[in-house]
């Protein structure tokens, strides 16, 4: 694997300590989204202290990454327009950093289109269902847990040859 590439399976928080919640809306009153504590611009990422963040990753879909479970009140409040579902363990986070990161992602997706006017998007990377997040440095990719090994081996396979400068 190229040294310029940093691949991790965690986000600073231990995986077991991360609670994941998917929010799905059947009817989102546009003005109310922010009052619900969710980013309102599709593809936006809102970050809070302590490593929590919320990804507006697909139409009517948010992923909450938080160190603690979602409160009952928040769950109840959602019933008017959607749902809160605990999906802890469904997604595994991978950090891709270094100069090879963009090149690696560009070998499986049109990066520019995917992240145009967005900081995150649901996308298939190396045939694996993923959520791609642009970070200040590099990317974080949330991969479905059952295919995380497949994702890593695809990245490693590319890493053997390293990025091609052309």
């Amino acid at each position, binding site marked *: 694997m190229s040294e310029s590439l940093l691949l991790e399976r965690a986000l600073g928080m231990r995986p*077991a300590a991360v609670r994941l919640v998917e929010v*799905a809306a059947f009817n989102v009153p546009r003005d109310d989204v922010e009052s619900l504590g969710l980013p309102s611009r599709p593809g936006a990422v809102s970050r809070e202290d302590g490593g929590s963040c919320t990804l507006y990753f697909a139409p009517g879909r948010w992923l909450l990454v938080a160190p603690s479970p979602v409160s009952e009140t928040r769950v109840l409040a959602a019933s008017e327009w959607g749902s809160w579902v*605990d999906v802890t363990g469904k997604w595994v986070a991978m950090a891709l950093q270094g100069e090879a990161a963009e090149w690696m992602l560009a070998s*499986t997706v049109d990066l520019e289109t995917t992240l145009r006017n967005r900081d995150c998007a649901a996308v298939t990377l190396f045939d694996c269902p993923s959520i791609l997040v642009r970070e200040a440095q590099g990317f974080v990719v949330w991969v479905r847990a059952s295919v995380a090994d497949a994702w890593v081996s695809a990245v490693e396979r590319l890493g053997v040859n390293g990025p091609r400068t*052309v």
Partner: protein
Amino acid sequence: MKAAIKRVGTRLSDKTIQFFFDGRVYQAQVGDTAASALLAQGVNALGRSIKYRRLRGLLAVGPEEPNALLTVGLSPMVIPNVSAPQLQLREGLVLKSQNRWPSLRWDVASLLQLGGGFFGAGFYYKTFMWPSWRTYEPLIRRLAGLGEAPGASDATAVSVEYLRCDVLVAGGGAAGLTAALVAAQSGARVLLVEREPVIGGELEFESAVIDGQPAATWVATTQKTLESLGVRTLTDTTLVGGSEGVYIAHREPGGLAGHNGVFRIRSGGLVIAMGAIERPIAFVDNDIPGVMLLGAAERLSRRYGALTGRRPVIFANHQRAYAAAARLVKAGVAVQAVIDTRPATVLEQDATTVRHYASLKASGVLCLSQSVVVAAKGRRAVTGVVIKHLVSGQAKRLPCDLLLTSGGWSPAMHAGLQGGGVRHYAADSGAFTAAQQPTGRVTVGASSGCFELASLLTEAARIAAALVSDLGFKLDSPRPPMGLGDPAPQLMPYWRSPCTQALEKRQFIDFQNDVTVADLRASLAEGFIDIEHVKRYTTLGVGTDQGRTSNVLAAAILAEFKGESIESVGLSRPRPPYHPMTMRAMAGWRVGAALRISKRTPLHDWHVAHGGVLDPMGLWMRPRFYLSNGVDAATAAVAEARRVRTTGGMVDGSTLGKIEVVGAEAGLFLDSMYLTKASTIKVGRSKYMVNLREDGMVLDDGIVLRLAPDRFIATTSSGHAEHMLSHFEHYRDVDWAGRAVTLTDVTDAWSVIAVAGPCSRSVIQKVLGSDWHARVAALTHMDFARGEFAGAPLTVLRASFSGELAYELHIGPSAALALWEALSAQGLEPYGIDALDILRVEKGYLVSSELNGETTPDDLNMGSLVQLGNPCVGRALLNRPAFSESTRARLVGVRALDGRSSFLAGAQLTDPSSTRPLGYITSSVFSPTLNEWIGLALVARAQAIEEATLVARDPLRGQETLIRVTATVHVDPSGERIKS
């Protein structure tokens, strides 16, 4: 090994390297191609033709080269059909010529042409008819084929890169560079791809001045300017196809697959500046080694100092021949003659040519007008030509060791033609050019039929400016480069020299496929008249070169035979890839294990470490059995199943599909998805439910758990998880849009450990501890309880897929291993899915063998579910009369009549007195509980009567077993165990 003299060329360095060709060592200079190094050392035969096995030399120096294809590497790791003039040599490269045995010089199959003359197109299919083509096929196939297919691969991934730009410029010659410059100056993002390792195109050897600088200086300056404007240039990269804004380019550094890459380029505009391909003229024996295209010789001379003959004759139909001849003379080549098909008056139309003509005459070069070469002479190499005056008919012979021909140029725009567009034939330049092109695509330079530098630069700038303006970029008064190069060609189309019809079979058109003028004539005679049919009948234009040198020539000769215009004959439609790509390049990173992703459960590593034999089930890897229970699947599965019935066992069921359905209308939504109602399930209870397809066939089954009044988890079979989610999502989005129901895939959020057998309750109680003791004890069949284990959420569901007292433990993946190991520590052994199969057949439970898309609820004895009258998806079509006919199948149990014999799934069932199929066996297992073979079968209703005798016929596996029909439930029909 010959000691080669150091050559000087624009692409050569002084450093020498060695390589192998057909077992001999040769020297080369760094920068040399296989073709240039071999030709420079006097090797002018580089291969044999595919059909007639004629010895062939080099014709061209680009991907249009039809003859000189080499195999690189040692068997089995070979790369076949690498074009010698594009193959950049490296130290120690091993090369082999193709289509010959035992050697290039002596080839057995080439004797075929001595015996019976040439085989025309269709020869094999017409000749080897009795008793059948198949009799001869293996032998003929061995002789056929282009090169040796690789027998092994190192399976490294080929890099694939998605790129994006506003304007993609294909080709980095004078026109491409100009277009790129104009586009970049307008602020557009430009990507330039160039097939060669360096940019410049024809400017590499053409005598030209641009903007007051020598061409080479202008190219270098332009390259710097482009870089400063942020233009990315990909050399060694060919546009191979694409349409509608998405294009594929293939990078092959050094012309060698194995280090290649693929680019998927999304671009607003495409500028095709891929130049033009010089084409030969047809005359007798125009394929002898030493007959070469004029442009190829110029490139070889300039780039590699590889002069392939000392005394060439030039045969052409345009002004450029004189400029080229002058350059060759200047390079020290003793040009013998320039044979021009045109009248002498044409020469006088431009001053440059007049000057070249005079200097050639002064150097003693014979210049003949209105003359043609009618035949090349020589066996292994050209030794002379026969020339004929077109008016007087006088013929004479000239000695030479090289014959350079040029019949004009065919614009290269194939790669851009895949998105539609029309070509038309321009008679004055003898070229097919683009007539209409889709929006966003333009053709410039020689690709557009413009062959003269000054006008080409102006036009390229104008066209590029119009394109970027269409794309919305602003350009302040573009200033096109001003250039002066070789004179305009003043070409007069000339296609083939006169000869008798008998000799037409030695006038070659498509060198790679040995298609001759005679074959074109035969094709028309056989009724293959359309150009596309001619292509299929004669193989004209197929192969690695895709007929680049032959297609237009063939169209012209067909036009002559048909008495039609060349325009109406037309060209066959090019198809991608324009240039050969390896299959691996198309696969990209999807090689080896990455060909198909596999899914793993959180317990995957445990299974592997404990002798689990894993098999792919869909995308999932699941343990079939554990080696600790037996050496093979059959033994182990029987032992595992027996243990579940006697004591207990556990199985990894994490692959089960799980969909969390939430919302005030979740229950109603599920009612519409299943045969029976979910809205009536009480919180904390679950229910076995069945889905239908729209046509009434059973789609899937599973257990639905009600977690809260507005919250359910619907489980699906492992293989159906994705399909069921999209099935649900379809109805949620179409029929239930905006209503209070959401769907979330939670398959990976829950691991499932199924614990079954008489000991299951006590083991679970021990493992989960005192908090859970009473709760587990209180669970009746289909109840569940929720809580935590090791910090992860846990649902304990009392449900059974084995017919035993059983529990499903749905656990957060982070604690799955801890729970599994805790159960294991209590002595619980794992079982695989083969054992699971035995257990479910014993109980008559269904899997995909029975839920095969052809069975209705009634067929599967689930008619009672339907009678509850829930108007769900598929319900209406269940009333079709055909579904209740006596010929429809019904699910039954089957056992061998003698209680001993085996039978296998797939066997056809018939009446003992007949061979008419009445149904078939869907599942069969050896039951350790009953100590005999049991199964499930779908049998016509009239015969689906208990104790009826049928025959299971299995001719493919040589089995015939008398069986008796039974109830579907073989073990514990009253269900005492499950309720215990």
